């Protein structure tokens, strides 16, 4: 039986409450600098470019009515340049604005999880310590977390339409706020986070690893077997996205299909037509493919950093690197594990930010969810992005645990089991990236 019990006081959770305040300020600062600061400068540039485009359009109209052929061609070229400048300025504004807003929202959610879960755990009464923990005859105590989370998610989803409508109204769109739905959703979110926080607290204090006693997993850690069963269901979720995509894709007349002689006229533009150089819309180049490319590398690197975190946690003979920079970044085994996990969180967060920047560009170029191609693209890549984000929320706790009780050869399997999920998310991207971005 592996696993360990840590004598952790509940007031240690006040640390997460303080971190949540820091995260909140960091999110607001990122929004102020990126969206309001640089974003507003870029917005002015876009307005200027758009104004110039309108002037050139007027010149072109005049040339078309009274000009010579050369003048018409010159006006047409000038309009084309101004049009591209207008698009570039718009996309540049969207990049900064979306980055600022995404970082702020992500940090607010991080802060909510750390703040609410931390506060809830810190006010819990201390349990009396029993010496018989770890005994083979110990009775396993059930956890209230799953039912709390399930109830919270139920309320959240019940109020979700009102939540979305209210958020749209607050963003200045033409909607009436539905406060009852919003409040129901907010209460559901609070209960969900409290359930998760309770789970975090139970895991922080440690528990003996339970071993399966019957086939086919006899002798294996139940948590590991459970994680693999969970991943089976996840495989089917993504398989349904892929089969839907294939079903639609084989019926579309895309540029690929025209080139292959399967049909004559392009009737559908896919995301890759917008993103990939040589795509049918002509908008794709190195820069449009770049966010997807960086995201692919970010996920692979993050898969490796989580492997390094596990390897470091399990290595009883760990020593700091002889390289001065590495020794400074990873001075002790405990800090090395925490920092590898922090790097993983940073790379995952980068993935989300770049994904939303890319979405904002695609939507601005007309690739919206109201088409078949857009619908399957946003649903499949959005579901994947949601998986990445849920992984990041789990990692928030793992960073805290690595920083407080620490991971070692006794409890490092927690990183291994989470790593299975994270690698699965990477594996799903291995299929999504070529299918939706490159093909």
């Amino acid at each position, binding site marked *: 039986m592996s696993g360990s019990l840590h004598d952790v006081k509940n007031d240690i959770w006040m640390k997460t409450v303080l971190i949540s305040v820091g995260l909140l300020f960091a999110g607001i600062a990122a929004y102020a600098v990126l969206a309001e600061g640089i974003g507003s400068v870029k917005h002015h540039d876009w307005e200027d470019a758009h104004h110039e485009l309108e002037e050139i359009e007027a010149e072109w109209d005049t040339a078309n009515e009274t000009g010579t052929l050369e003048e018409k061609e010159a006006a047409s070229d000038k309009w084309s340049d101004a049009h591209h400048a207008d698009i570039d300025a718009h996309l540049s504004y969207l990049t900064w604005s979306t980055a600022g807003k995404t970082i702020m929202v992500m940090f607010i959610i991080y802060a909510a999880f750390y703040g609410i879960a931390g506060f809830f755990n810190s006010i819990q009464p201390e349990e009396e310590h029993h010496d018989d923990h770890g005994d083979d005859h110990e009775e396993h105590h059930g956890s209230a977390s799953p039912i709390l989370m399930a109830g919270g998610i139920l309320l959240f989803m019940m109020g979700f339409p009102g939540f979305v409508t209210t958020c749209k109204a607050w963003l200045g769109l033409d909607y009436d706020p539905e406060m009852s739905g919003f409040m129901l959703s907010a209460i559901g979110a609070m209960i969900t986070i409290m359930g998760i926080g309770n789970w975090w607290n139970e895991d922080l204090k440690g528990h003996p690893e339970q071993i399966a006693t019957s086939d086919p*997993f006899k002798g294996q850690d139940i948590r590991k077997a459970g994680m693999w069963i969970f991943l089976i269901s996840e*495989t089917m979720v993504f*398989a349904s996205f892929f089969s839907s995509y*294939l079903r639609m894709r084989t019926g579309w007349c895309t540029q690929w299909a025209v080139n292959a002689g399967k049909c004559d006229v392009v009737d559908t533009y896919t995301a890759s037509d917008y993103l990939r150089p040589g795509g049918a819309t002509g908008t794709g180049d190195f820069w449009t493919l770049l966010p997807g490319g960086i995201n692919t590398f970010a996920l692979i690197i993050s898969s490796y950093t989580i492997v390094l975190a596990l390897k470091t946690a399990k290595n009883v003979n760990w020593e700091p690197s002889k390289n001065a920079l590495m020794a400074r970044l990873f001075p002790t085994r405990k800090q090395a594990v925490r920092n590898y996990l922090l790097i993983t969180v940073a790379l995952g967060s980068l993935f989300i930010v770049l994904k939303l920047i890319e979405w904002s560009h695609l939507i601005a170029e007309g690739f919206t969810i109201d088409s078949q191609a857009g619908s399957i693209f946003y649903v499949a890549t959005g579901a994947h992005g949601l998986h990445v984000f849920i992984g990041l929320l789990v990692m928030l706790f793992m960073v805290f645990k690595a920083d407080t009780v620490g991971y070692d050869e006794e409890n490092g399997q927690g990183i291994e089991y989470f790593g299975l999920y994270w690698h699965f998310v*990477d594996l799903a991207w291995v299929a999504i990236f070529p299918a939706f971005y490159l093909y």
Partner: protein
Amino acid sequence: MSEHKYTGPIAGIFQKMADLIGKDVYYVNFLILMFFTLFEIAAVFFETVPGTDIEITRDAVWAILIVVGIIKGYGIAAFFMHLKGDPFIYTRTALFPILFAALMLWGIGLSNPDGIDGLPSWCTPNYDYSYVTD
């Protein structure tokens, strides 16, 4: 975990490469994943093989994306997810949904009205194509 020595036709190659450069298999796997990701992006990015006039055809891109996907999938599942080295029950568990996923994809192909007459005959045994001709 780092003490484990991988054997077998493919995992053995990873292990030999790791021994050659004095690093562990995870590091070699990471480098291979990075290289092949770069390779698949380049295959789409360039219309001809750099430095030549050889066109990268649609079929070539298809082949590259599928082969690279399989290599990357193997690297992540075998080494990062520890299927190589863990008891075989986990590999069996991981392979279990493949059957259902394959059935879904096959069924989906047949469900496509435009796909019926476009599929190879072995996909549609004893099908009289009355649906298409009607």
